[in-house]
């Protein structure tokens, strides 16, 4: 952890493959960083962009979204819409230079416990390098 900064990460997982990955990870005894908080949604397709924004403005240093691989979605097209929604949000944050690299999107299958833990760790380190999110400390947002 660079200079003791402990990033607050919000990891949004769909309740079919996302949290499935987390369960498989715990079944294999793998551990992901403690500063990653998991937030379960029924499907990443049902994730309103405003919730991600609220997290980034009110305290999260980074938000990651993980759902089923294309084709596996329990609701068939949820992950496709989630991909577009996150891409749209990243473009907005990039255009306004509000740190679009604090928002990641990655597919995690039910069985990929390893990949889930790696993503959480990789993202946590990535945000640690980036440092605290300048938006969260401002009181004029």
């Amino acid at each position, binding site marked *: 952890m660079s200079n003791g900064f402990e990033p607050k990460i919000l990891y949004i997982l769909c309740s079919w493959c996302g949290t499935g990955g987390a369960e498989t990870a715990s079944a294999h005894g793998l551990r992901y960083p403690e500063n990653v908080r998991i937030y379960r949604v029924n499907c990443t397709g049902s994730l309103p*962009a405003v919730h991600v*924004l609220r997290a980034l403005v009110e*305290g999260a240093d980074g938000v990651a979204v993980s759902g089923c691989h294309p*084709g596996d979605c329990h609701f068939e097209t949820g992950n496709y819409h989630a991909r577009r929604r996150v891409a*749209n949000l990243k473009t907005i944050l990039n255009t306004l230079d*509000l740190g679009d690299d604090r928002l990641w999107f990655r597919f995690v299958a039910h069985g990929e416990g390893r990949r889930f833990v790696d993503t959480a760790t990789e993202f946590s380190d990535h945000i640690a390098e980036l440092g605290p999110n300048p938006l969260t400390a401002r009181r004029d947002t």
Partner: protein
Amino acid sequence: MNGATVAAPEGVQQAITELLKRGLDEKVFGAVLVPARVPAGDSFAWLLVRDSAVLDEAQPLPPVMSVQGARAIYRFARRGVTGKVAAVLRPCEVRATVELAKLKQVEIDGLVLISMDCPGAVPLKAYVDDPQQGDADFEKLLNGDQTPARDICKVCHLFSRPASDLHFATLGSDNGQASIVAGSDQGRAVLKKLGIAEESSLDAWERAVAERQEQRQQARAEAQATLRQKIAGPDKLLETLSQCINCHVCRSVCPICYCRQCYFESQAVLMPPENILARARRKGGMRLPTDTLLFHVGRMSHMSLSCVSCGACEDACPSSIPVAQLFSLVGDATQKQFDYVAGRSVTEPLPTITYKEDELPDLVAPYVETYSGREAAS
């Protein structure tokens, strides 16, 4: 490309009014939605007209955009119209109507959309304070001098040929005639009913439009580049939004924001006092009314893909924040990502309801085989 030509001795306004009158009298359409000057003379309002005598006072191309045309149509045609209704709209108003139709908020088949090459509009507040000066400014706009136009109109590259049924091709034509381009079968049917033949060539007009479009795209890129310097980054963006008082006028005048009750005014953003105090304590203080940044960026996430950069929000902002330029900058970026243009065509699906199986490859962060960075470090 071919188009029809009609006599327009006193200019385009008169030609459009003439067409509307004949349409009403010959029952081609049942009613007409057209702007007209309000009795006090300091602004314009949309009128639904059935009696063609009233059209003499109407002004199809007003100097100022008071109520956005698509918003008037939304309030009017949300549950269909009885009989055919012709609406005279600026290109951005046509594009917003097309977006609303795709958002299932307007039943477009009952409408005959008539548009014209847009010379730009005069800022609303300036016009309301001094209508005479506003009219003089608009004359300059009609003669091609862009200076008094709104900032957003100065960089508008979609000022011509929207997806309307009939389009008055006026750019560069001042020989007492006006040409009409039919944009759809319905448009052609209307011209046929009115006995207006489409034989004259419009190549000169097409070249003029293409040339001005080139200039405008150039100006738009420069303006957006300088704007991005001014507002990008937390400090600069919140400096720009520091005047915002959360009155949400930009949302209520926006044609694309059709929600009856906006998320940012609903119970979802209401918090008990304990949470508000906790939020304030975390940062040492909290601006009220709160959620200013969340409202603007959240609204962008909701509607920037359909933003037609009509400038209604900036006209209405009491704190003179460059809202329209901000939203057009973001709208252009998000629409480019899905190579979509808001309001280009009724059949082009909204980016939010379609997808491709294998798109946006660079969005998913590249996955290394196993990431052992953490264990290696600790």
